[in-house]
C-alpha cells in the first residue's frame, strides 16, 4: 500500500505523452511555464488552456486525475483571488461596484488565479506521465554540462534515485514501528497537536537508527559491486529523442509565438 508512494502521481498507461523523452517533457514544461507567464491577456491564457487540453487528451490521463492535482492548490488560488480583488487599487475610469471592489479588480484577480491553475495543471502532466526515476534520469542528462564546472551531477542523481528507491522501504518500516509502538501502548491519536507530534519521537528515533544501518549495508553492497563515480562509468539506460519530441517542441513553439502575437494584437474582450 505504502509502496505506491514512489510512483507518486504517476498514471501508468502508454500514450504519446508517456513515450516522450523525459528531457523534452521537462524542457516543454519550462517553456509552458514561460508561455503562461508572458501571456498578459485572457486570449493568451485561453491558448495555453487549449494546449493543455490537447496535452491531456494525448496523455490518456483522466481529467479527474489532473483536477485532483489541482485540489492542493485550490485554496491558494482562492486566497490570491480574494487578495487580488481587495488590493486592486481602482484607477480612474474603472467601474467601482462597492467599497474598493471594482470590475477591473475582479478581472485581474481571475486572470492571476487562472494563471496559477494553468501552471499547476501543466506541471501535473509531467508527474502524471513520467515516473520519478525517469524524471531523475532526465534531470541528470540535462544537467550533464555542469560536470564541466565540477558539479558532481552523477552523484547528485544517484543520491536522488537511492532516495526514491528507499521511500517504500522506509515507509514500510515506519508502518511497522508505529504498529510496534502501538502494541506497547503508544498513543498517536489523542491530545493536542504538540503532544501528537511528541508521540512520534519514539517512531522517528528507531527509524533514523535503522536508516543509518541500511546506509552502511547499502554502502557495502555498492562497494562489492565496484561502485565508482569515475569517468570510466558507462550508462545502460539511454534516453533518445524521437519524432514525437520534435512534434511536441514545434507545438510548444507555436504556442509561445501565438501568445506573443496575442499580447501585441490583444482583441478587446471586456
Amino acid at each position, binding site marked *: 500500500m505504502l*509502496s505506491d508512494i*514512489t*510512483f507518486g502521481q504517476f498514471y501508468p498507461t502508454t500514450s504519446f505523452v508517456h513515450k516522450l523523452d523525459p528531457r523534452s517533457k521537462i524542457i516543454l514544461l519550462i517553456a509552458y511555464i514561460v508561455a503562461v507567464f508572458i501571456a498578459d491577456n485572457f486570449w493568451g491564457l485561453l491558448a495555453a488552456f487549449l494546449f493543455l487540453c490537447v496535452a491531456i487528451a494525448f496523455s490518456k490521463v483522466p481529467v479527474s486525475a489532473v483536477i485532483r492535482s489541482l485540489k492542493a492548490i485550490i485554496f491558494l488560488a482562492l486566497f490570491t483571488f480574494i487578495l487580488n480583488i481587495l488590493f486592486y487599487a481602482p484607477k480612474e475610469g474603472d467601474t467601482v461596484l462597492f467599497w474598493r471592489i471594482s470590475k477591473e479588480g475582479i478581472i485581474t484577480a481571475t486572470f492571476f488565479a487562472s494563471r496559477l491553475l494553468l501552471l499547476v495543471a501543466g506541471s501535473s502532466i509531467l508527474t502524471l506521465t513520467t515516473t*520519478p*526515476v525517469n524524471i531523475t534520469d532526465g534531470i541528470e542528462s540535462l544537467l550533464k554540462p555542469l560536470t564541466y564546472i565540477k558539479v558532481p551531477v552523477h552523484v547528485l542523481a*544517484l543520491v536522488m*534515485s*537511492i532516495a*526514491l*528507491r528507499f521511500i*517504500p*522501504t522506509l515507509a514500510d518500516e515506519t508502518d511497522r514501528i508505529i504498529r510496534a509502538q502501538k502494541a506497547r501502548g503508544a498513543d498517536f491519536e489523542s491530545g493536542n497537536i504538540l503532544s501528537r507530534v511528541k508521540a512520534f519521537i519514539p517512531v522517528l528515533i528507531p527509524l533514523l537508527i535503522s536508516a543509518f544501518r*541500511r546506509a552502511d*549495508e*547499502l554502502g*557495502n*553492497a*555498492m*562497494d*562489492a*559491486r*565496484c*561502485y*565508482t563515480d569515475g569517468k*570510466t*562509468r*558507462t*550508462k*545502460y*539506460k*539511454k534516453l533518445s529523442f524521437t519524432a514525437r519530441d520534435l512534434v511536441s517542441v514545434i507545438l510548444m513553439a507555436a504556442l509561445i509565438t501565438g501568445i506573443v502575437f496575442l499580447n501585441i494584437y490583444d482583441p478587446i474582450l471586456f
Partner: protein
Amino acid sequence: MQAIVFDGVSFFYKPSEENELPKLILNDLSLEVEKGAFIALLGKNGSGKSTCAKLINGLLTPTSGTVSVFGLPLSGENTDLFEIRSKVGMVFQNPDNQQIASIVEDDIAFGPENLGVPREEIGRRIDYALKVTDMEKFRYSQVARLSGGQKQRIAIAGALALNPEILILDESTSMLDPKGRREVTEVARNLNREKGMTVIDITHYMDEAAEADEIYVLDDGKLRKKGDPSEIFSDEEMLAETGLELPRASKLAKELRLQGLPLKKGILSKEELLEELCVSLRIK
C-alpha cells in the same frame, strides 16, 4: 586451482578505548578453497564468518597475513580491487538493503556500469543474469514490490552481472521464508553445477550446509574443522563445542536410533532418512 587462499590471516577492529585490548575476530586463519567447489561456512555468531566474506573481496583488509583470490593478493600497493571485486560476487543478508535502483533492470546494470562495460554487453549480461535466476518476467518490475526471495535473487543477478567466478552468500537466506530460501539456494546450486561457479555459502541453516560439497567450521576466528557434511555432522563433540546443530533429518535419525531403530549413521537429508527407514522397517 585455488580460488581463495587465506594465509595466516588475523583481523581485528581498532579498539575504541585506548587501553582496551583489541578483540581478535580472525586469529591466524589459514584456509584454501578449490575452484568450482561449493563450500558452506559455519560457525556461531561472532566466529568470524562474515569477516571472512568481506576479506575475500577487499571490503576489509587483514590486519596481518594475506588473502588472495585466483593468485591475486588483496593487500599491498598495487592491488586492483575492482578486478578482484568483479571476480567475487557477494549477496548480503538483508534483502532490502542491496538494491540501488528502483527498477530491477536498472539495478542489475549498476555493477557493469561501474566497470565501464559497453551498453550492448550490459544488456546481454542482464538477459543472462535474469535467466539464470529465473527472474525474467520481473525485468521491469519495481524492486520494492518483490518478495524477499525474489529480492535476493535480484541481488544474485546483480552480482552475476559482474561476471564473477566466485559467489559468496553472506547469510543471504537468513531473513527469508522457507520458500525464498529454497529459491535462493537452488539458484546458487545450479550456478555451481552448471557453470562451475565457486560458491561460498555462509549460513545458519544446517539443512542448507548439509548439501554443500565441503563444510568449513569456524570457531573463535580459527578454522576448527573442515570436511564433507557427513564427516562434520558425525563429530558430535565438535558440534556441541562450536554451538552447531544437526540437520533436521540427522536429528530425527538420531532420536529414532535412541529409540532402538537400527539406522545407519551419517544421514543428512530427508530422502536418505526415508530410504533408510524403508530398509530397516522391511527387515523388521
